């Protein structure tokens, strides 16, 4: 149901009934290694190219999800997924393997929430019973396409971010009342915001206004106060973007507690890992949400959260042509299912 200007309310409360998360070696050394279902020692995942390795990550995440839900892939109606490599080929090729009817999404690093919002919408209105949604990224494949060869000795400034190697997939199903699982309750679709920043090594700064815009739109549309949520989680703003977003939100009059405002890119890695301003990539919000955060919700740490994934909609070509970086953010609200009803 449309509410306000750009938000949906999911009255039937679609349920995230299973998740699967895979990651690479760098994530295995990170803070949240325990929340990954599959961790690879080898950045190549035994494949002969990084793009294929990314495909493997997504396939594994899907397979794990299905195994946890005790479902066959024939029972899944749709797959909403995407990534940011070469016309989202890793995802499309994985979809070829899985043979699930497939919507390929591109929202850069916001893909995870774009997919979750759409999947929830479709399930909410009985467009499907079971939908998979997810996103993936691979550090080396992304570096290769957007920056320099991985072995090139370029110096990354402290504003740069580290692309996550990993894939996160969630299975969205019809609500089963009483089941102890997280459910999606609303979503806000963001506008493309461009504040004229053009430094590809400062994505956080470019994406912050988009995140702030979507968060403000969410509270306006839903007529809610930030205190409604136990946690507002941004996707991959990193240190700079998160601080900037927070200041923008405070200036706009929203009362948010700083410690309830967190970022996936900052949660994922340890302080001594050389990730500069934090993690990023389509897989960043997907792995952290579907792994760590949902686990914590099930443990009862959070009851209601708002996840805002941000994406920088640039291409290697556009920044070489001196275009600025347009950005987008999508928000999805997740709650624990009410028990014993």
């Amino acid at each position, binding site marked *: 149901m449309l509410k306000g200007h750009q938000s949906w309310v999911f009255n039937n409360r679609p349920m995230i009934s299973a998740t699967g998360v895979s990651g690479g070696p760098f994530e295995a050394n990170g803070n949240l290694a325990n929340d990954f279902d599959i961790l690879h020692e080898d950045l190549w995942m035994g494949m002969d190219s990084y793009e294929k390795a990314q495909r493997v990550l997504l396939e594994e995440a899907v397979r794990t999800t299905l195994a946890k839900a005790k479902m066959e892939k024939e029972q899944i109606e749709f797959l909403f997924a995407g990534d940011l490599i070469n016309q989202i080929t890793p995802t499309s090729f994985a979809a070829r393997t899985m043979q699930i009817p497939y919507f390929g999404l591109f929202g850069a690093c916001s893909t995870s929430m774009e997919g979750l919002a759409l999947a929830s919408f479709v399930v909410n209105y009985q467009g499907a019973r079971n939908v998979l949604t997810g996103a993936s990224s691979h550090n080396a494949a992304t570096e290769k396409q957007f920056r320099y060869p991985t*072995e*090139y000795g370029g110096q990354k400034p402290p504003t740069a971010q580290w692309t996550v190697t990993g894939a996160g997939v969630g299975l969205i199903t019809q609500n089963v009342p009483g089941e102890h699982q997280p459910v999606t309750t609303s979503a806000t679709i963001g506008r493309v915001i461009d504040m004229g920043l053009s430094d590809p090594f400062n994505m956080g700064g470019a994406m912050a206004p988009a995140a702030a815009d979507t968060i403000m739109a969410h509270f306006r549309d839903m007529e809610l106060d930030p205190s409604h949520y136990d946690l507002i989680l941004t996707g991959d703003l990193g240190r700079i973007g998160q601080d900037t977003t927070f200041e923008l939100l405070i200036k706009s009059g929203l009362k948010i507690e700083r410690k309830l405002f967190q970022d996936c890119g900052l949660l994922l890695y340890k302080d001594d890992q050389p990730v500069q301003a934090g993690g990023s990539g389509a897989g960043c919000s997907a792995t952290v949400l579907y792994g760590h955060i949902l686990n914590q919700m099930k443990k009862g740490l959070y009851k209601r959260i708002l996840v805002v994934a941000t994406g920088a909609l640039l291409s290697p070509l556009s920044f070489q042509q001196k275009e600025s970086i347009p950005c987008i953010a999508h928000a999805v609200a997740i709650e624990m299912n009410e028990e014993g009803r």
Partner: protein
Amino acid sequence: MASKQKNMTPQQQKYQQLQQKHELKRPVLKNCIKAFWVGGLICVVGQAISYFYIYFFHFTEQNVGNPTVATMVFLSMLLTGFGVYDRLGQFAGAGSAVPVTGFGNAVISAAIEHRTEGFVLGVGGNMFKLAGSVILFGVFSAFVVALIKTLLGMWGVL
């Protein structure tokens, strides 16, 4: 830069000021010191190699540059291939990018990276995607400089 600023809306300018405040500053002084040390050391290694060639081989100071550069590029290949040069580059910045080893690293890393696309389209096509601009501008500026010098010489100015 100035014209870029003018094209921005006041809102964009205001945001950028706000963003600047949070932007992590590059540690310029620290970076320069690191670049100085590493860059200097690479040159010392180069000097040692060139003395080695003068001493044991048939090279004079004038033409020892060729084998020295080739050796440095070879070392750069080893360091690049074993995944050391990118770490060094993150530490030293220009200190490892400006010496000829950095040029070698740019060529070699691109060649290794695009091996997955095959030897013709991948390695061949992408080898110079980073270093190509150095060759282009080097050759073109050298052409202009040499042309001017030669013409001035012919007209008897020099």
